[in-house]
Structure formats: C-alpha cells, structure tokens
C-alpha cells in the first residue's frame, strides 16, 4: 500500500449491551435521532400493511390455484412428465458440475500447495438462499404432492451427480462432459430429438472425446490426429444413434410460464456470448472496414431499446427470410435478445481487452506467437477473467428483460398474468398478489446471480493483489 492513501479506520464495534448499540447506531446525535423517530413509525406502518397483505387480506388462492399455470403456462398438461424429468436431469447436471468444479479446485489448491478450503453445505445454502426460499415458497403454495415428489427426485439426482467427485483426476474432463451432456439431455427430454438436435449432442460428445483421450504416450502431431479421429468418431456415432431414435417432443413454441423464462434467458445468454466476443474482436481489429461495421452495429443497438429489436423479430424478420421459412415467435424473440445482448457483451469484453497491459502483447510477440494463439492463450483468458462480474451483470439484465416478451404476446412468467386474470374469479381482484408473486420469482433468481457476481468480484480482486 502506498503511503499517500489513507484508509478510514475501521468502525469500532460498540462495546457493551444492546442499549449501547441502540444509542450509538440509532441516537448518536440530534439529527440522527430525529431521523430514527421519523422513520420508525413509517417502517412500523409499512410492516403492519405488509403483514396484513401477506397473511390476512391477500387473496393468495390466485397463486395456489394457478401454480401450474405460473410454472409452465399453456404447456400441454398430458406432457407434464417431460418437465418433471427435465428438472430431475437438470439437478443431476448441476450435481455433476458442482462436484467436478469443487474437485478441480481442490486439485488446483493441492498443486499450488495451498490449504484446501472445503465448501460446506451451509455456504451453498447461504449463497443461493433466495432461490431456495423461492422453491420453498412454491412448495408451500402447492396443492398436490407432485411438486414435493419432483423436489425429492431433484435432491436425489443432485446427490447422485455429486458422486462425480470420485471420478479420478485423469478423467476430470469426463465429469464436465457428463454435466453438459445432462444439460442437453434435459433440454431434449422436453424438446425431443428431432431435426438438428443431434448436432448439439454431437458437438458436446466430440469435445468430450477430444479432451478425454489424451494419447499421452504418442508423439505431438500424431496425438492431435488421434484425438481428432476420436472426436469425429463420437460425432458420427451420435448421428447414427439419433437417426435410430424416434423421440418427438413438445417444441418451444408450446412452452410458457417460468419454464419458458428460464430457458429463453439461458439461450439468449449462451448465444450472445460468442457473438459479443466476435464483435469485440472485430471492433479492435486492425482492418478498418471490419472495425467500422462492428462499431456501427454496437452503437446502433445500444442506442435503441430491446423492444424495437423484438418488434423487428416479430414484424420484419419474417419478411427477411425466404418464403416458407417461418420460425416460431419464440425463436425470433431469442434471436432478437441474443443480437441485442451481443452488443453489450462486446463493449464489456472490449473493456477487458483494453485493461490488459500492452506488455502482455509485446511479450507474446517476443515469444513468436501468432496473433490467433496470442489472443487465445494470453490476452483473452486474462481479459475475460477481468470482466466476469460485468458479464454476469449483463446476464442478469437479459434475464430481467425476458419479461418484455409479454409485450409481444408470448406468455412467459409475467405474461401468464393475463391468463390468470382472464379467469372469472380473478378478473378484477388479486392483481397485486399475482404481481408480488411474480416479482419475488424474478427477484430470487436475479438476487442469487448478483450475489454470485459480487463473490466473483471479491475473489478476482483478491487474486490480483
């Protein structure tokens, strides 16, 4: 620490009983005392009204009777087993992912000779308390046993997935492949395995084969060829298997409710990242035309609201494709959201790229690395690591913005409201109850994400010192 910066001395915790605490935190001087005296009755009244609303007057039957509608909207009820399976498979995927991540952190700590800090169960509860609380709220509102059974199944699947921590270190990548594969499977349980869905699985399995078979005994270039062959073989086998499978599903134009909100956000996030990365690199390219194109795109998109892009998707995109191709309105909305977020991701990544000292580039050039390798191995890992918190912030934003689909008549979590209040019993009542419930739902997920991003920020800053 340099001598010129003076840090405030940490506030001394008051010693003594609760009375000392009250005096020092609520009545330290006249102005503060006045503030306390003014705020206390206001707060008390607000709390009184809140208690009345939540426990006495609130028509919460609007939620209990429509819980399924909020969760899955107009999704066909006879196909509900698919969503149930999806939740359980997702829990398995998260279990495998969490266990693998924890195991590789332990490995890294051992390698560096650092003490291994075990992440307790309690710390996970603390990190995701808002989502857990929301799930408990859902269970509280549940009328039937199904949500409880699903919950039990999900916990069991998560525990089963956690067994992945026993995968030996050499096959750590298998854990990651298994986790991503389970994610894909969870999606396809509902969406079916028709059309081009084999491609996603093939890519995952090919990448998995590439990183699982290291061919350590084989000479450099030969090993690359062997690994490539293994990857291609995995892809071909996937294709052949998928051609045999007959497993039609429920396409996402039939999804709605919270289920749709979560998947739409996930897709927009996943698609916007590579697009944003390409845009950021293009904006810093040495080739002027590319730079102008990227700059123009980014500035144009950042100057208009998301809804204009959604309008473009709804009203114009159809005209821009050849006659006959008619993507569903959800596909068009996801495209618009990804194109929109990409511009913001690009600016964040550009900030990261600019924060890398030029010495890094020079050092890489001095080592004789070609530009592509320099970017991939030196610049991007540092740049991306620096901007992870900002990226998470952007992803929270796109999650919240998925509520805009209501405006273009897609019934996501907020849009289900219109179905609920079309019912005779709730035409003019319980609007506040519905919206508070929806707000709590959005809040639970967004708050958990923002806490994670703060945690990451602290950890990354610690790594810098």
């Amino acid at each position, binding site marked *: 620490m340099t001598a010129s*910066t*003076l*840090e*405030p001395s940490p506030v001394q915790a008051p010693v003594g009983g609760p009375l000392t605490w009250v005096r020092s*935190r*609520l009545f*330290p001087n006249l*102005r*503060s005392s006045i*503030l*306390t005296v003014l*705020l*206390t009755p206001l*707060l008390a009244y607000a709390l009184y009204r809140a208690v009345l609303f939540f426990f006495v007057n609130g028509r919460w039957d609007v939620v209990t009777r429509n819980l399924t509608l909020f969760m899955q909207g107009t999704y066909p009820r006879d196909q509900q087993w698919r969503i149930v399976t999806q939740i359980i498979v997702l829990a398995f995927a998260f279990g495998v992912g969490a266990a693998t991540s924890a195991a590789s952190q332990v490995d890294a700590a051992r390698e560096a000779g650092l003490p291994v800090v075990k992440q307790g169960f309690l710390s996970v509860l603390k990190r995701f308390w808002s989502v857990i609380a929301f799930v408990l709220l859902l269970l509280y509102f549940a009328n039937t046993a199904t949500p409880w059974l699903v919950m039990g199944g999900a916990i069991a699947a998560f525990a089963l997935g956690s067994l992945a921590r026993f995968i030996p270190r050499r096959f750590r990548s298998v854990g990651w492949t298994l986790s991503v594969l389970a994610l894909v499977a969870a999606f396809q349980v509902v969406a079916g395995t028709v059309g081009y869905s084999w491609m996603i699985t093939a890519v995952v399995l090919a990448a998995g084969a590439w990183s699982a078979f290291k061919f350590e005994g084989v000479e450099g270039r030969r090993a690359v060829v062997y690994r490539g062959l293994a990857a291609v073989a995995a892809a071909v086998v996937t294709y052949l298997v998928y051609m045999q499978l007959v497993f039609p599903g429920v396409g996402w134009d039939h999804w709605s409710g919270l289920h749709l909100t979560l998947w739409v956000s996930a897709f927009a996030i996943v698609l916007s990242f590579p697009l944003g990365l390409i845009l950021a690199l*293009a904006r810093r*390219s040495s*080739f002027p*035309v*590319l730079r102008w*194109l990227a700059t123009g795109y980014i500035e*144009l998109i950042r*100057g*208009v*609201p*998301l*809804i*204009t892009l959604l*309008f*473009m998707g709804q*009203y*114009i995109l159809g*005209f*821009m*494709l*050849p*006659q006959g191709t008619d993507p569903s309105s959800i596909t068009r909305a996801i495209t618009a959201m990804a194109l929109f977020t990409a511009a913001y991701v690009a600016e964040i990544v550009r900030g990261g790229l600019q924060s890398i000292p030029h010495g890094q580039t020079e050092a890489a050039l001095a080592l004789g690395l070609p*530009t592509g390798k320099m970017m991939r191995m030196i610049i991007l890992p540092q740049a991306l690591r620096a901007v992870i918190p900002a990226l998470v912030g952007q992803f*929270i934003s796109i999650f*919240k*913005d*998925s*509520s*805009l689909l*209501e*405006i273009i008549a897609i019934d996501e979590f*907020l849009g289900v*409201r219109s179905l609920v209040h079309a019912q005779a019993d709730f035409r*003019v*009542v319980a*609007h*506040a109850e519905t*919206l*508070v419930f*929806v*707000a709590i739902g*959005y*809040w639970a997920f*967004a*708050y958990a994400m*923002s806490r994670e991003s703060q945690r990451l920020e602290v950890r990354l800053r610690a790594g810098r010192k």
Partner: protein
Amino acid sequence: MLRVAGQVAAVVVVFLILQWLIGNLVTNYGRLNISFDFGFLNQPTQFQIANHPQFNPRSPVWRMVLVGVKNTALAGVFGIALAGVLGLIIGIGRLSQNWLAAKLSAAYVEFFRNIPPLVVIVFFAFAVFLYGPLPNLRQAIEIPLFGTGRTALILSNAEWGVPGMRSTGNLLAFGVSALVAVVAAAVVWRWRTRLNERSGEPHHRVLWSLGVLLAILVVSYVALGGPLVIDWPQLSENRRRIASGFSINSGFMSVAGALGLYTASHVAEIIRGSILAVPWGQTEASFALALTNFQRYRFVVLPQAMRIAVPPLINQALNLIKNTSLAAAVGYAEITTLTQTSIGNGRPAVQSVVILMVVYLGFSLLVSLILNIVNRRLQLVTR
C-alpha cells in the same frame, strides 16, 4: 497477406448475408405489393388515442408520431427527475451512520435492482391504479381546498386532477417578460460571481438572482392584469372526465413513477460508489477545518463525487429513456405503444420500426449531448 485475405473474406460474408436478407425483404414486399416509401405518414391513423381529445382517427400518422415523441419525452423527463432525487437521497442514506436509514436504503436498492422494471410498471398500472384502492372517475375522491369551496385534488383510478394554469390573454407578453426575467437573473448571477472573484465579497448569487427573477415576474404579472390564473380541477357534469385543471393519466404516472423508483436503485448505487471513491483524506481535511456535516458534503465530498458519478449517471438516464418503451405493456400512448397499434392497423412494419428506432436514437443522442456538456463543465480543469 493471409490476414488481409481473411478479413476481406469476413467483410464479404457480412455483405452477402445483408444482401440476402434485404433481397428477401424486397422480394417479399414486392410479392405482397407493399411499397417502401413513407407516404403512409400522411394517411389517417384510423384510431383514437386515449386522453388526447384533439387527436382523432382522421389525424395523419405523422401527428401520431409527434404525440408519441411528446409522451416519451414527458415520461422520460419526469422519470429522470424522480430517479435523480430519490437516488441521491437513498445513496447518501446507505452511507448514513443511522442504522435504520442505512438498512432501509440497502433493502430498497437490493429489492428494486433485482426485479424487472416491467414488473414495477405493470404493478403500478394494474395493482395501484386500474384495480387498486382508488375508485373510478364516477366516484372520484375530491379533496377540497380548506375553506374555499374549491377542489384541490381529484383522485381516481384512471386519472388525477391537479391545479393547473389557464391563460386569460396577454400570454405572449407575459412569456416575453419571463424570458427577460431569466436573462436578467443570469446577468445578475454573473455580476455577483465576478464581484466575488474581484473583491472577495460574499456573492449570495442564488438570493440575488431569485430576487431579480421574482421581482420582474411579479411586476409584469400585475402590469399585464394577471395573464395566468390558477385553474382548479373540476369534474364534468356527467363525471366522465376531468373538465378543468390539469389532468394526469394513470399510464403516465405508472411509467414515470415506476421507472423513477426502479432507476433510483441504480442511481443510489452510483452515488454511493462515487462518494466512497472520494479519498478519505478529503474528509479528514474537512474535519480538520471544522466544517459542519452539511458543509463537508456540499463543498468537499459531493463536488468530487459528482465528477466520478456523472458518466455512469448519463448511462442511467439513457437507460430510463429507452425503458419508457416498456409502456407498451400498459398502453400509455408513447411512441412504442402507438407504433405497435399502428402496425396492428396495417401500416408497413419496416418503415414504422425504422421510425421508432430513429426516434430512440435521436433521444439517445440528444440526452448524451446535453449531459456530456454538463460532464465537461464538471470535470476538473487542469491548469
């Protein structure tokens, strides 16, 4: 050589994709016999806009665009004002020594930052106004002004009536004198500032300028025989609309209010961050000078914090303007709502969305222009 070839290839690919998309667009438009010109702007809109009696279905589309731009600007300006004031209070409140104030501010920020602004807007429109506790216009609550027999405020779930201003003639002359008053006040401000710089006398420029402004306004008001009178709110005979006074519709209050509350949480975080970013030595120095708490904030901490805060605050203002487009969910007649209705009425989609985007780009440019000038004036002048 290879790099140049790769980049040329990238540009060609982008060009080809654009050409393909636009080619399809031209073909499809030709097939459906839709033209690309903006002639539809002169055609009648064929729909009515609520709360705009001077606008009728025969009014041309370009007038609809103007109404939309006006309403977007109104919601934006009021939203920004609310967000600024509330955000400043909450941001400072979060740093307060008072435990209650700090915790309440923190809870406010954590709540509003993590819910979609659209949920807040819809909550206001449906749970506070339309189906909220207020009665409809027929049974509107009329709050009387004590002892005068006049109504000060009309509250209903669709619109509120507040006192407004009504002209009784001579408005132009009064407008000119108001302009003169503003100019005179500015001149006095400069004069006091100069005097202070030359002689070190206290300038009291706020008092002086306000005094001059009010004096000229009052004198001209009296001289012109009262060109403006207060227009008290009143319901029409059949209690179907607010006949006089100034009426504010619930759509406007929902959008401006909700966006103000939502954006205030972001503003508060920016204010807090920038106050914390002012070096602690500055605070210690002001303690050493025995400045009061208010003086410390007003003359030492806030001026420096503002320098850090202004660029992100500009971003928030831009976000708020763009977020007014969410009004489309509650039917407040701003540009997005009107464009959506207009496209639904068969106006060509491509041109309508292009106009919509140009309007928002215009707003973004205008706001960033104004605020960048402010920013430049606030920044430290290095000598």
